[in-house]
């Protein structure tokens, strides 16, 4: 299909507002009479809550109210489960334990909210928090995933028999049979630790109850405004139409802002209604480290069965997953890990059981990648270990096992995070790998450059890692497209947006159909009063799922435009074209009518219309895929390590990706760059250090290191396009792709840089210190051999 706007490097519609400081973020909302909230948070990770005395805080000048769990009375109850366990899997164990608005009786993680102070200013509210007196009885802390499952472990939830939150196993083929046939069995233990999502904007919420109209308005830094509206209405006994949730501009999401309901989301709207005054709460950075969800804690015991000639006959991966103190997000993350465990490889026999474990840490919910980086880390580390064992080139081993282009759709015979069958819809995997190899110059590096650099005393290594990303999952999204009397087009959709450029990519989709300028298409997202069907922005699904709904609505409006214009211009529809904001007869340019005029004709103020006529040039459409579209990519890098300081320098970084039809390469590349920077953090910089009491030791940006401009390499991106057959646009998601392969890639490049030192990396994140230790251990092992 010949496309004019889709696939073009269109600059973004939303930028002027953001660049001039006029875009509204939640903390920019200011309402007359607004009060400010601050939370008292637990100092202990695990304790009985004996007494909370708020009497002094209530006396503090400027304090309007202080609430504890007791004060909420019958309105105190846990949040709803966000994702329930899969109904279709046999023998699944799942204990749902959800977070509470304010802790009662027991504390389950450091930073859990105990009380809220609401005052005339944030400064006063924070002062008064200091005056709350709490008596705790500290309990032994549950942190280690394996110890947590021992029979003598203390319990995070006293009513359960153990800290096991869930257990699920999935099988494909017959792993045991594959194992018996194998020439080589490779076994490893792989440990992945937590990091923070660390969006630049912390969370926040403003709630305004208008007693006269009995209407609640909430501004929330959420990725899912519609579920927040519906859930809030249910909590407060209101009609869904009495609640409006606005997710305005959001300063980065990356996953944790899809979590719901956070305690603050339960408390602040309730308090605003109690007090009959608007209440604002804005999280500070320290709170963000303690109270915003995190991800990535898992321990894997993996086994790979191979034939001598490098065919992977089977894979077995049993793992533990840390869900933290509660498990509102169900099994999404570990299911994603299982779905990515086989990467883009044709592996016929697979067996995996995971156990989800309660610990005294903040809840784990998806963070950019959401279990996928773990799956890819595991399979790719195993590939490298196997290549060494077989004495085979690691890239050759991978190529021998990639799913061939004629095997699509490729059914994995397990279920994914959406409980849909894991089917890889389309792809040309080998071509993508070859592209990355070609750009980075793999052969030449290995044969010529590396030996030369080594002679110069430089430790430089190369890594190449292919990966899949399941994206664009259901259930559905919707959109409404309206041509207005001005001739401009308004589009509303339910998903939220956190910087992905939806204001532009969706506008491109509509402009393509209606022949208007991209800048004449106004996109409204994240306001439930504009559109109230949909779920939210997660799983790299915005462009695919909401984009497809926008596309369908735009096409349907195009039909209406053509039908009406054909009547008005007295010409058959086939002869009409939409261009420059008007409809004209193909060969007679003077015979034309503007979209604005047509919109007026479609919505007459007087006169009779034909029965069954719908007014206006407007259409609403929905799109729900049966299963997700799966993107594929390969990252390659050349990494130099200073063998004295263990500081690293990335000399080259190449991304070859295939995410189907590209809507806007500028935006796509931006998504990839950002993903890679987070992935590098996960590989070498970002580790949450927790002491034996469950206290975070680096809860600030001074101590928790995000990648800055001086660490980031320049990234070379190449696109290949295998359109997805699952949607008309042919799109696959890309939002998380950049982050997924980076830790695996980094590990491979490090091992390659120290090829003669038997370094093996089986954990993430690393750090210069940790790398130093690993090299020393490798050296000692070699001596003792």
């Amino acid at each position, binding site marked *: 299909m010949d496309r004019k706007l889709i696939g073009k490097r269109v600059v973004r519609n939303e930028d002027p507002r953001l660049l001039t400081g006029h875009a509204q973020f939640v903390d920019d909302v200011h309402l007359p009479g607004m009060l400010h909230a601050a939370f008292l948070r637990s100092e202990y990770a695990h304790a009985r809550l004996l007494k909370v005395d708020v009497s002094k805080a209530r006396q503090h000048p400027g304090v309007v109210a202080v609430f504890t769990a007791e004060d909420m009375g019958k309105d105190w109850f846990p949040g709803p489960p966000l994702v329930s366990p899969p109904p279709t899997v046999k023998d699944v164990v799942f204990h749902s334990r959800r977070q509470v608005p304010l802790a009662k009786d027991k504390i389950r993680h450091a930073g859990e909210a105990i009380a809220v102070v609401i005052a005339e200013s944030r400064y006063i509210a924070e002062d008064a928090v200091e005056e709350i007196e709490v008596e705790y009885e500290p309990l032994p802390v549950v942190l280690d995933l394996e110890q947590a499952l021992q029979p003598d472990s203390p319990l995070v939830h006293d009513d359960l028999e153990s800290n096991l939150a869930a257990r699920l196993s999935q099988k494909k083929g017959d792993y045991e049979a594959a194992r018996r046939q194998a020439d080589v069995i490779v076994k490893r233990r792989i440990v992945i630790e937590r990091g923070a999502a660390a969006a*630049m904007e912390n969370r926040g919420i403003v709630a305004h109850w208008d007693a006269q109209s009995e209407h609640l308005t909430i501004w929330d830094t959420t990725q899912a405004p519609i579920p927040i509206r519906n859930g809030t209405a249910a909590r407060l006994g209101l009609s869904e139409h009495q609640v409006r949730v606005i997710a305005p501009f959001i300063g980065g999401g990356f996953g944790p802002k899809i979590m719901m309901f956070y305690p603050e989301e339960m408390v602040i709207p309730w308090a605003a209604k109690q007090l009959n005054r608007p209440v604002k709460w804005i999280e500070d950075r320290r709170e963000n480290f303690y109270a915003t969800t995190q991800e990535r804690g898992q321990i894997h015991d993996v086994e790979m069965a191979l034939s001598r000639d490098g065919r992977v006959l089977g894979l077995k991966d049993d793992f533990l997953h840390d869900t933290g103190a509660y498990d509102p997000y169900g099994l999404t993350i570990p299911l994603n890990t299982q779905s990515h465990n086989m990467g883009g490889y044709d592996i016929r026999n697979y067996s995996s059981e995971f156990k989800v474990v309660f610990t005294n840490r903040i809840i784990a919910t998806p963070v950019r990648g959401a279990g996928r980086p773990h799956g890819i880390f595991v399979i790719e580390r195993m590939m490298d270990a196997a290549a060494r064992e077989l004495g085979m080139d690691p890239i050759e081993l991978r190529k021998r096992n990639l799913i061939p282009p004629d095997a699509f759709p490729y059914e994995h015979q397990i279920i994914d995070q959406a409980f849909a069958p894991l089917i890889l819809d389309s792809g040309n995997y080998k071509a993508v790998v070859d592209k990355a190899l070609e750009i980075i110059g793999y052969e030449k590096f290995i044969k010529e450059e590396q030996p030369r650099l080594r002679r110069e005393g430089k430790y430089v290594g190369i890594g190449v890692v292919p990966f899949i990303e399941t994206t664009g999952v259901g259930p559905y999204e919707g959109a409404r497209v309206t041509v207005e009397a001005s001739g401009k087009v308004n589009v509303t959709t339910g998903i939220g947006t956190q*910087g992905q450029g939806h204001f532009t990519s969706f506008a491109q989709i509509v402009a393509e159909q209606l022949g208007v300028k991209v800048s004449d298409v106004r996109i409204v997202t994240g306001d439930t009063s504009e559109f109230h069907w949909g779920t939210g922005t997660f799983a790299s699904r915005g462009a695919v799922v909401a984009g497809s709904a926008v596309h369908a609505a735009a096409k349907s409006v195009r039909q209406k435009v053509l039908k009406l214009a054909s009547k008005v211009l007295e010409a058959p529809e086939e002869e009409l074209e939409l261009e420059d904001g008007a409809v004209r007869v193909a060969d007679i340019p003077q015979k034309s009518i503007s979209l604005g005029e047509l919109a007026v004709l479609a919505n007459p103020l007087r006169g009779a219309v034909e029965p069954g006529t719908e007014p206006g040039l407007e259409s609403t459409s929905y799109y729900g895929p049966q299963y997700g579209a799966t993107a594929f990519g390969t990252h390659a890098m050349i990494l130099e390590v200073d063998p004295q300081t263990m500081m690293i320098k990335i000399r080259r970084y190449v991304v070859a990706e295939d995410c189907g039809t590209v809507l806007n390469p500028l935006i796509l590349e931006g998504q990839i760059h*950002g993903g890679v920077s987070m992935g590098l953090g996960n590989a070498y910089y970002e580790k949450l250090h927790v002491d034996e009491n469950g206290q975070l030791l680096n809860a*600030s940006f001074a101590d928790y290191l995000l990648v800055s*401009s001086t660490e980031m390499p320049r990234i070379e991106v190449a696109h290949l396009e295998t359109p997805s057959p699952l949607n008309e646009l042919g799109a696959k998601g890309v939002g998380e792709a950049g982050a997924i392969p980076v830790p695996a890639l980094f590990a491979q490049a490090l091992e390659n840089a120290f090829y003669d030192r038997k370094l093996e990396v089986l954990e993430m994140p690393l750090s210069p210190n940790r790398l130093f230790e690993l090299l020393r251990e490798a050296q000692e092992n070699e001596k003792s051999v």
Partner: protein
Amino acid sequence: MPTTFDLTITVNGTRYERSVEPRTLLSDFLRHNLGLTGTHVGCEHGVCGACSVLMDGQPVRSCLMFAVQAHGHEITTVEGLGTRDELHPIQQAFQEAHGLQCGFCTPGILTTVKAFLEQNPNPSEEEIREALSGNLCRCTGYQHIIEAVELAAEKMRG
């Protein structure tokens, strides 16, 4: 009641007289007292750079200063660069090079870049990376930001 301080301050060319508590942060003062919410707060401990504004032309972190410390000084915030219809060349360059995604870090980056390009109108990539190393961005991976600064420098050299 806490004591207050009578503050005179010029922000984006407009002179304001306000009485503030001495402990009021400059970032809070700009955002909540003056309603200039373009300046963002990402960490409130001086690391992320989102709150950067110019004081007498030099970048400062408004979360690390009390408003009273800006008494008698001139402040420039992002609202003092261009307007929506007439973007400053740096803002134009950021749009053209896609130097922002969520836009939360952007105001602090724009003010930092303004001061930087005034001092160094023809910077190398190395120098740009160095100049931006105190501004965290979680979305972009910096590459398009760096390209935006190169483009802005070119535009401003004319």
